[in-house]
């Protein structure tokens, strides 16, 4: 993975840049010591590491604005960072860049039950929001598995999902308002406590923009009342195809479960060995279907789901009889990543989405690839929305295995695109999938996205090297080639 060549001119001006930052953020808010900078050298994609030139930890919006404005004036790149849990390298530092840590923005600013929303600073954790409103029976719906650590600011940047997003949506569907700072220091507010921000849906573009468009300094999210009941069914199938058919049949019956997760045999065995959830070990596919809502609805739907599963050939079915049992069903799934981590020195987690009907084909092709490269793969799958998480097992200490795992992963993602899906369902492009973007998008698609970036950050200073495989100057992107105005299709009907 090649990052933009560090600008030695900028690195030579490090002292001057540090002084300028210290004038804005006093004391320990500017970090230059190599040992201290080590804490920021990577995010959740640990295979890539880079020390930033300097890190700055502002604590007010005005400081963020001044930092960005100053960096723009000095021509210095900036990499924003929340908790650093990105799995795609979205917060990977640059050798010639300032790392802008938002960890000091930890306050919950306003809890407003009458408007069913909460306003927080971006460094508040995802779970922190739910915890703050739990005593009133509310919660914040998107629940990425890193929710204990990941921050809402990072969730905005990555448009994070979670196991409940088929029914309750991704981050973008649950955000009402943002305050953000552009690279030139401009402070903007988008939306608020009302629905639909006026004008263009800039909040929609900023959410999921992976820190390339602006730095979020305040977030208003909607909160929901906790469902009265939740029960889960554990279903086992002799083939993954039957499991996939069952998922399709549940949705065709008009049922959108709160969660619907599938695991393949290697993932089932790894999880069971780790947490002893009571999973059946003689099945090829295990499905957890969780129904939530009023008790009358959950009871009704549990029966229907069981009937559908029997019809689709389930060889194992167990309905949770208690909250403890429901949580036990989930314990295995939620521990799937560390469980796989126990059976292999290293694993690499992928994140493509496919049309669900392509699942048997994709699993088969994945197995063929696995056989060819000699690396095992375990699959966990957000079955409801077609989001695959293949876990590739490898050993980084064996020469060439990391590269082989990455190549295997890239081929899986290319396969996702080939069958009509996408490169990433919830982890983001970052540096990890950057060079695969041309497999999903044409040059014209990518250039238009980069023009949009130019509207926010014309000098390309905010988080460069992420998302886009080729960097273009905005002047070059904006150039317009107007040809002679003949209609190539003289037969377009006109009136």
């Amino acid at each position, binding site marked *: 993975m090649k990052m933009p060549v560090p600008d030695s001119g900028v690195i030579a001006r490090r002292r001057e840049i540090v002084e300028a930052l210290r004038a804005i953020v006093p004391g320990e808010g500017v970090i230059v010591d190599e040992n201290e900078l080590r804490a920021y050298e990577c995010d959740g994609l640990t295979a890539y590491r880079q020390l930033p030139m300097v890190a700055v930890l502002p604590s007010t919006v005005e400081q963020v604005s001044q930092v960005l404005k100053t960096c723009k004036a000095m021509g210095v790149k900036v990499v924003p960072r929340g908790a650093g849990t990105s799995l795609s390298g979205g917060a990977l530092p640059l050798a010639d860049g300032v790392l802008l840590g938002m960890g000091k923005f930890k306050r919950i600013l306003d809890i407003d039950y*009458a*408007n069913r929303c909460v306003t927080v600073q971006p460094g508040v954790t995802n779970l922190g929001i739910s915890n703050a409103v739990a005593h009133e029976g509310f919660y914040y719906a998107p629940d990425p598995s890193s929710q204990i650590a990941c921050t809402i600011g990072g969730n905005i940047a990555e*448009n994070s999902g979670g196991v409940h997003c088929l029914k309750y949506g991704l981050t*973008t*569907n649950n955000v009402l308002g943002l305050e953000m700072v552009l690279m030139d220091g401009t*402070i*903007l507010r988008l939306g608020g406590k*009302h*629905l*639909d921000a*006026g*004008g*263009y*849906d*800039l909040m*929609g*573009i900023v*959410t999921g*923009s992976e820190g390339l468009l602006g730095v979020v300094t305040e977030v208003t999210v909607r909160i929901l*009342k*906790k*469902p009265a009941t939740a029960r889960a069914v554990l279903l086992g199938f002799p083939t993954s195809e039957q499991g996939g058919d069952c998922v399709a049949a549940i*949705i065709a019956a*008009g049922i*959108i479960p709160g969660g619907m997760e599938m695991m393949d045999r290697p993932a089932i065995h790894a999880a069971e060995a780790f947490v002893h959830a009571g999973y059946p070990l003689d099945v090829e596919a295990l499905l957890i279907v969780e129904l939530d*809502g*009023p008790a*009358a*609805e959950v*009871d*009704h739907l549990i029966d229907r789901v069981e009937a559908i599963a029997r019809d689709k050939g389930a060889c194992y079915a167990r309905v949770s009889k208690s909250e403890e049992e429901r949580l036990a069903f989930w314990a295995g799934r939620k521990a799937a990543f560390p469980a796989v981590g126990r059976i292999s020195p290293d694993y690499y987690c992928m994140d493509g*989405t496919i*049309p*669900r*009907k392509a699942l048997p084909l994709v699993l088969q092709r994945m197995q063929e690839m696995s056989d060819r490269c000699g690396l095992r793969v375990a699959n966990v799958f957000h079955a409801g929305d*077609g*989001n695959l998480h293949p876990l590739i097992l490898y050993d980084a200490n064996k020469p060439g295995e990391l590269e082989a795992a990455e190549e295997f992963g890239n081929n899986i993602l290319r396969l996702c695109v080939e069958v*009509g*899906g996408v*490169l990433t369902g919830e982890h*983001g*492009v970052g540096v990890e999938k950057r060079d695969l*973007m041309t497999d*999903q998008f*044409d040059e*014209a*698609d990518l250039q*238009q*996205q980069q023009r*949009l970036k130019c*509207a*926010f950050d014309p000098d390309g200073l905010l988080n460069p090297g992420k998302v886009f495989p080729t960097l273009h100057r905005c002047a070059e992107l904006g150039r317009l080639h107007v040809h*002679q*105005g003949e*209609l190539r*299709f003289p037969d*377009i*009907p*006109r*009136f």
Partner: protein
Amino acid sequence: MTITTLKPETAAQVTDAVRWALSAGEPLEILGSGSRRGLGRPVQAGHALDLSGLSGVIAYEPEELVLTALAGTPMATIRVLLADRGQHLAFEPPEGGTLGGLVASGLAGPRRISVGSARDHTLGIAGVSGRAEAYKGGGKVVKNVTGYDVPKLMTGSFGTLTALTEITVKVLPAPEDSATLLLSGLDDAAAVAMLDRALRSPYEVSGAAHLPAGIAARSGVSAVSRAGGAVTLVRLEGFGPSVAARVTMLREELRADAVLGRDESLAVWREVRDGAGLGEGSDAHLWKLSVPPSAGPATVEAIRRTLDVEVFYDWGGGLVWLAAPPDSGAAIRGALTAGGHATLVRAPEPVRAATDVFQPLPEALMALSRRVKESFDPKGILNPGRMYAGL
């Protein structure tokens, strides 16, 4: 000039038409069926690009929850197709028009409070920018974070960024049953407080509206028109047994006066979606105000200090439909002290040409919006002026 309306039949012809417009420096008015021409400012263009020739559903896979269609496909066609498989566009858009027109105008109905708007259901787009370049954005699966979420930017952009040629939307199972709790005789503030109670309950309320007496009296649903005063409505939808159980519990909790069954429930929410006849038959201008729900009644009270208006509330108080005399924009917008925005949704064309139909944006946001517009349409040939003068 001989060309007045270009009516391409393929996406390639759309590119060609825009290329001509770009080189000739001739702005285009982008049209689907033209059913929403009254929404927004009149476009300053001598030529029209009529996309109704790009019609047809390309793929519909109920189990995948996605539908892809050409932008000019009539919504009526899509509704029938979805209804056949027990599905719908969950955000309850108004009827009529084309899929492209719906996405471009970014509309949603009463269910906005529980499932979101057009923005939340538009997954992928293909179209032609004002640079005469065909491109695509988003994807054709329900979960996708690859690249910028360009489809969201298209919703509510009123054709000012791209002439859409193809759209992929998320479709969802339509509820099996619908019932509505009815409370009568509440004033605005008490009604919105009651809606708040309903929305804070765990019963998954999917509609929360309040019709003051004059509006309720005009309803075609007799239980509403004969209630003898203001009517507050709380909708519950879903599987039969679930709706029945929730109706029982919430009716008790809110002390509701009556319950509307499926047919009446469907009928009254169609009325709410379509404006409940507000201001019809008068020369009043129609506005929609999006405010924090709890601020709805106070906002209306402030407006009433200077204007004679008729209103009703949807979205739990967060959407105020308001019929006002001409030239009320400044007074209405001046009352939005709790935040939000006001859109003039019905007024004669000369009025819409001369006023701010959409809420004026703060200068920094307007400057960014201009740069966004330029990134798609540097010469301003796509629907110029439809949203804001000079954009």
